Every structure is written in C-alpha cells, then in structure tokens.
C-alpha cells in the first residue's frame, strides 16, 4: 500500500467517522445506565443475602441445635406463615374479612382479635402503632389503636370522623369530628388515653394537615353563613411555648371553602385547594391545586387534580408528583406531573398514548418513582382495573418510564420499602411485593386486599381511589411520614 493510498484511507475514515452524531445527552444516559446497574447489583446482593439466611435457617441451625427445630423466634398464636424466603418492603397492615391483619415484614401474618369490622388502617410515624376505624359505616364509628403484635388494642376516640392523621413526629393522632354542619372541632388523642382540644366543638373543621415538625397543624374551618364569611387557612401551634397561637395564612372568598393539602417537606409552605360552595360534587370533578408559603405571599397554581392525598407524593428535594386531570373517574384523563411547589412549574411525565398514570410513590432515596399505569377508559370497571400495571422511572429521567417486569396485573397503591429495592402493592386479591428491578412477585397474603370504600363521604363515588382494606406499609423513612 502506497503512502498516498494510506493518506487517502485516513481522510476517508475521518470523513466516515464524522457521520456519527454523538447525542447531546450522553452524560444523562450514562448516569441512567449507572443507576440501573447499581440497582441490579444491590438486588443481586440482597437476593444472595436472603438465600444465605434461608440456607442458614434451614440447614445450619438444625445441625447446630438438633433438639430444637424452630428458628429461635417466638411467635404467638394465632399467626399464619408467610411464604418462605419472602422479601417485602417491611411491615404492612390491611383489612380482610372485616378484620385487621398485620404482616410483620419478615414472616408472620396476624389477625388482630376484636378488630371487626375494621377499616382504614394507618401506621404511626415510628411504626409502633396502627390506628383503624371500627364500625366505619355505622352511626357511631370508633377510632382504635393497636400495636403491630396485637397488644394494646384500645379505643381512643368515637364520633363521626372527618379526618384522621398521625403526627409525623409523635405517637398522637389528630382527628376532626363532623357530627353535623358547623360543629365538631378537632382534637389530638394518644394511645394512652390523653386528649387535647385544638378546635372547640362549636366549630367545624373542613380539613387539616400536620406540619412536618409535628408542632403545628394547618386547618380550615367551615364558616357559616358561608356566603358572608371567608374561610381562613390557619396554622395552629399545638405544642411548645407558643401552643394555642393561630396564624392566618390566607382567606378564601365568600362561599368558598379550603381543602388543606400536605405541607412542603421543608415546612415553609403548604398545598391547598379552593372548594367552591364547599361542594363535594364540584370537588369530584377536579380542583386547582395551589401552593403557598406560610406567609401567604404569591400563591401559585400547580395543576388540576382530585382532592386525593394518595395522588400527591413528595420527593426529599421538595419536588412534588401529582396525579393531574379532571373528572371523577380514575380511569379517565389522569396523568403524572412533576411540580416545583415554590414556582408552580410542572412537567408532565411522558407515558404511552391512551393510558392514565396514578398512585405515585417516591423511593426513600428520592431517585425513583413507582406508579400505576393503566389503559384509558371512560369508567373504572373491573376490566379496567385489570389493566393497572406497576411502572417506575428515574426522577432525573422522566422519559425512562418502564414497566416493572413480573409485577401482577391490577396493581394499586405501590409503596417503597426502606431499602429502596422493593415495592409493595395491593391487587384485587393479594398483597404482594416485588424487586424494583423486576422479578417474581412475592405474595405476602392471598387474602382479598381491596374490598370497598370506607363510606366516609362516599369517597369512591366521588372518584377517589381509596379502599378500606388496601395494604398500608409501615413508614419507610421520616420524611415520607409527613
């Protein structure tokens, strides 16, 4: 080959190479690949550790202790063993057959004796207590608390609850009473029987939300007559030297109520919806989600949403995932948006055409989001429910949304485990968990997990996807509890 030919080859190779067009987002692609690889590695390590534990339990322990074939763990009766080798996001509670059931997170299912008819289980911030309603559909519902091991089952309040919420920092519950229009009040009750009045019985609290530090509560009262008194959005300090102090953030116009949403994770602002004529039917078709600082300055609009707390999920960095869209049916016109509450900027999460996106849940490390993707349908029939699938995406790469391979059909309300590797969810018949990277789902309980609404305000009829008996997983980390 002559020198001239070699020079020609060099120039032609350079010309050919110039036809490659490196993309501008190569670095983002590298980051996403690295993250996927890390997740696969963590899953593999966790699986290997689980396998080692199983081997040690089944093989090594009996050889070392030939007279004792147990695992050394004392489990009180009655319990049901979970599947061997089951991995789960941690403890969970749900209602099946009208009874409250608790899963320990590592092996045993336990019905709570004397809990029937139970509904709406919720965990305390530290996972030490579960609250639930007994007789939710009766004239006199009772609020009970019980420890996950079944002990301490105690009635702490009775009345007609408008809202119930555990403090994010203490073992205490705020509960509003709504016996009739214009009265009821708000109280804080504890498992040991104490009771603190926040709003007197002579006033009706429309809705409320604990501050992230557990020191105050944002609330809105129903003002009567509605057409003359503007409902305030108040912050009431409930603990500390300033207990009892009330600060008004803003006021609605005449005949307009305020539905209080969650606080910003920083505690410097909060979300809310204006509720024209206090109308639940107007609310059911979608309201504008607003965001304000505690000073009430320059509120911003985020998106049109249903007033449904499971459809709002915070990331640790203060960004908010919202199920946006109007209409009462969860199967119609619902999509995910990532919003910055301080500015009102929202970005739609791209998903396939003719689908809806629901039930967002941000992972504990704030890097991933699990959600439910389902086909678009005019009404939420059982056939539509079967199209609900578990999907995930990286928060810094919204375009990378993809299905979790192996997850069962009919997924509802996914929730991350504290390890950030496992996702728990409910189906129409099971409580299940699955590695976030995909795999074979573990059936934690074959009991019917979703059996109907609480009946409180006819929530299901108004399009909210709440069920009395979906599995509620214990808090994964502090910031999520808020």
């Amino acid at each position, binding site marked *: *080959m002559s020198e*001239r*030919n*070699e020079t*020609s*080859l*060099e120039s*032609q*190779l*350079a*010309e*050919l*190479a*110039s*036809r*490659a*067009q*490196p*993309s501008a987002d*190569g*670095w983002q*692609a*590298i*980051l996403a*690949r*690295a*993250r996927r*690889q*890390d997740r696969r590695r963590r899953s593999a390590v966790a699986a290997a550790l689980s396998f080692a534990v199983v081997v040690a339990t089944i093989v090594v322990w009996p050889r070392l202790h030939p007279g004792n074939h147990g695992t050394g763990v004392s489990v009180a009766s009655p319990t049901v063993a979970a599947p061997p080798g089951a991995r789960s996001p941690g403890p969970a509670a749900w209602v099946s057959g009208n009874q409250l059931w608790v899963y320990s997170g590592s092996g045993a299912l336990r019905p709570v004796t004397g809990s029937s008819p139970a509904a709406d289980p919720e965990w305390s911030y530290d996972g030490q207590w579960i609250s639930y309603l007994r007789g939710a559909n009766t004239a006199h519902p009772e609020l009970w608390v019980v420890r996950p091991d079944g002990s301490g089952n105690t009635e702490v309040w009775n009345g007609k609850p408008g809202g119930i919420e555990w403090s994010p920092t203490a073992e205490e519950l705020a509960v509003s009473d709504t016996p009739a229009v214009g009265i009821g009040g708000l109280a804080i009750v504890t498992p040991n029987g104490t009771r603190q009045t926040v709003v007197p019985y002579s006033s009706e609290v429309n809705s409320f939300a604990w501050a992230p530090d557990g020191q105050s509560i944002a609330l809105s009262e129903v003002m009567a007559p509605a057409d003359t008194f503007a409902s305030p959005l108040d912050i009431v300090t409930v603990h500390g030297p300033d207990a009892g102090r009330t600060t008004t953030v803003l006021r609605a116009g005449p005949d307009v109520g305020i539905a209080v949403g969650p606080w910003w994770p920083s505690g410097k602002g909060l979300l809310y919806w204006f509720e024209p004529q206090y109308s639940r039917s107007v609310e059911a078709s979608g309201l504008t989600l607003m965001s304000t600082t505690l000073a009430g300055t320059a509120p911003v609009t985020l998106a049109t949403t249903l007033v449904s707390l499971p459809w709002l999920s915070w*990331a*640790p*960095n203060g960004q908010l995932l919202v199920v946006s869209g109007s209409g009462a049916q969860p199967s119609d016109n619902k999509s995910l948006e990532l919003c910055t509450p301080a500015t009102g900027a929202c970005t739609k999460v791209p998903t396939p055409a003719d689908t809806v996106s629901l039930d967002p849940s941000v992972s504990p*490390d*704030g*890097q991933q989001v699990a959600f439910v993707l389902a086909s678009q349908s005019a009404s939420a029939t059982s056939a539509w429910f079967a199209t609900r699938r578990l999907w995930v995406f990286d*928060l*810094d790469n919204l375009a990378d949304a993809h299905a979790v391979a192996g997850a069962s059909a009919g997924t509802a309300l996914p929730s991350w485990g504290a390890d950030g590797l496992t996702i728990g969810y409910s189906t129409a018949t099971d409580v299940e968990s699955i590695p976030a990277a995909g795999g074979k789902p573990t059936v934690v309980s074959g009991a019917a997990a979703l059996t109907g609404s609480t009946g409180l305000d006819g929530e299901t009829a108004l399009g909210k996807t709440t069920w009395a008996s979906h599995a509620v997983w214990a808090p994964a980390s502090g910031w999520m509890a808020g």
Partner: protein
Amino acid sequence: MGAVVWPHDLVSLYRTRYDDMVRLAFLLTGSSAEAEEIVQEAFVKIRNRIDRVDNPSAYLRTTVVNGCRNRYRRILVERRHAEPAERASYDRVDELNDALTALAIRQRTVIVLRFYAQMSEAEIAQVLGCRPGTVKSLCHRGLCELRRVIQP
C-alpha cells in the same frame, strides 16, 4: 438529588473524549446507535476504576474497543437479517464503510486503530492482547482487502 458521586476525572474524560469515542466505535461497528451504547457502557464500567489507572484515556479506548468486539458478532447477525437501507446517494465513503463491514473484526479493528486513531502497532497489540507481528499481519491483509476501495 443524585446520590452517585462521580470522579472528577471521569467528568473531564467525558467532556474531552466522549465524541471521539463514539466516532471510533461507529467505525468499528458501523452503527451510530450501537456506538453510543457501547461508549456509554464503557463509561459506566470504568467509573469505579478510573482513580486507579495511569492513563484513563487509553483505558477508556481499550474498553470501547473491547465493547465493540464483543458486540460485533450480534451486530453482524442483525445486519444480515435487516432490510437493506435506501440510499439517496452512494459515494466512496459508503464504499469504504461497506468494505470495512466485510472485513473480519480483528482486521477492521486494526485498520481503524492504525489509520483513524493513529495508534502504533505496539499500542494496538496491547489493546488486542496479541503480538505486534500479528498486528502487522492483520493490517497487511486488511489493507489488501480494502485496496479496491481506496484506489485513487
């Protein structure tokens, strides 16, 4: 938000070498999409080792070349079953691309590293894990195959 901490050297390497590596991988695979994937995968592979290597740039290039060689068999199979692309025009560079594709992967690699990446036979031998004499032989045979295309 991101918990992954990236070595500063790797970020610098991306800025200075990413485009070059994609072009190199394109010459070795004939596919722009495959080239990007291979280079991105190479960055992921070396991210935890970059602090321990003397010449990160050369290490990256070797990883990319090995990535291309590992994938080349699959790329060839896919190309064999793919519909031929419609071309608006067909020039000498297209001819060169087709001729490169027809070469054995080791010949193609040697030609590209020698005449595009301007590497010496000793450096190529190190990347391929063979003797310099083998590189010389592969280069000679590859150039004979290409002679038809690169005649002036």
